[in-house]
């Protein structure tokens, strides 16, 4: 009976006494990690209350770099940032205005050519200088021509100016009449102007070339107005 009872135990004993099973690598990894955690905790604990008194010189070094008042400094920083933004905005605005002004100035500059001269004699007439408050700059470059031709040209210019000034858009009111009058005097009457002495007999042979440049300021005449004025002038002549 006893032998029978021991039989299953013996069977298990015989079968399992020398049993070996290799554990998976994960088992060792888990154990190793656990050991590492414990080691880490020991190191952590060692340094938990670790302190060391630095030398007094360190504070001296820090003191030199300390800010005086953080709140004031922050406010100053904020103001400086706002000022910088405003400055950039202002510069941008100025730049765009200058660009626009430049574009308009280019558009407002017109040159009216005169008939081609048959003979040119070198002579320069000084341009009348624009006075303060004068909205009309009037440059005349004159070469040489017979007195009659000169008079005719002046008459043409006068007619052109009359035509322009006759406009009802308020341009005439902005023009200094005295300067216009001064500009329109005969060339030989201009102060320091041409010393044109033409014998009466040769008058027909002497030709003149007149380059007339009229610069109209932006505030007075717009580009489309200038073009329409030129068109109207051409149509009338």
């Amino acid at each position, binding site marked *: 009976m006893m032998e029978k009872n021991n039989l299953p135990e013996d069977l298990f004993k015989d079968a399992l006494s020398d049993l070996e099973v290799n554990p998976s690598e994960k088992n060792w990894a888990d154990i*190793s990690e656990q*050991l*590492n955690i*414990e*080691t*880490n905790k*020991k*190191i*952590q604990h*060692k*340094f938990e209350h*670790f*302190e*060391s*008194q*630095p*030398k007094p*010189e*360190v*504070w001296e*070094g*820090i*003191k030199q*770099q*300390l*800010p*005086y*008042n*953080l*709140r004031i400094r*922050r406010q100053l920083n904020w103001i400086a940032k706002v000022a910088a933004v405003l400055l950039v905005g202002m510069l941008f605005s100025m730049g765009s205005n200058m660009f626009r002004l430049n574009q308009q100035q280019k558009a407002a500059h017109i040159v009216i050519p005169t008939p081609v001269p048959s003979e040119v004699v070198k002579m320069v007439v000084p341009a009348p200088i624009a006075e303060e408050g004068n909205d009309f700059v009037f440059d005349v470059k004159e070469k040489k021509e017979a007195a009659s031709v000169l008079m005719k040209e002046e008459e043409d210019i006068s007619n052109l100016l009359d035509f322009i000034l006759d406009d009802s858009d308020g341009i005439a009111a902005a023009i200094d009449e005295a300067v216009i009058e001064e500009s329109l005097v005969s060339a030989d009457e201009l102060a320091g102007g041409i010393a044109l002495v033409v014998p009466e007999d040769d008058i027909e042979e002497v030709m003149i070339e007149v380059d007339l440049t009229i610069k109209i300021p932006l505030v007075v005449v717009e580009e489309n107005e200038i073009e329409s004025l030129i068109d109207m002038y051409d149509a009338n002549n």
Partner: protein
Amino acid sequence: MMTSNLKVDVVIDDNILAGCIEGNRAAQELLYNFFAPKMFGICLRYSYDYHSAEDLLQDGFVKAFHNLDRFRGDGSFEGWLKRIFINTAIEQYRKNQNKQVNPLNDEVYNATTQDDVLDKLAVDDLLKTIQLLPQGYRTVFNLYVIEGYSHKEIATLLSISEGTSKSQLARAKNYIQKLLKKIN
């Protein structure tokens, strides 16, 4: 001894912090005296010697004083200050990253440190051992083992991969183990 008695009596409260923000030198010095030893301990762990630890301490405190008004009081002030010092150490690591040469190879490291040796070891000896580590190993070791950051966090902080963080830690431990064997 005098210093530690003084520490017990001093309580860093909002008034002292407000004084520091307003540029009160006495308040700033009080704050420094209170936290300097603890922060210097951190600096020593992240530095290779005493002198560079002093530089780190100075940089950290200057940074802290300049940003004191940003402390919102959500957590402890000491924790906030500690993070500043750790970040300063990480910045230093990044600056020197290109200069340092780490002895990287495919050697298999045994990461297990002998605990009995560790138990007997004084903190100063352990500190000296840590200071002997190359900067990369030292930084990862400090962040993982002592500060308790995960490898993922370390990877983000140091701009390295998680694998690099793991291998640097393993190598750091192996390095320490060898050094401890030498000491014993």
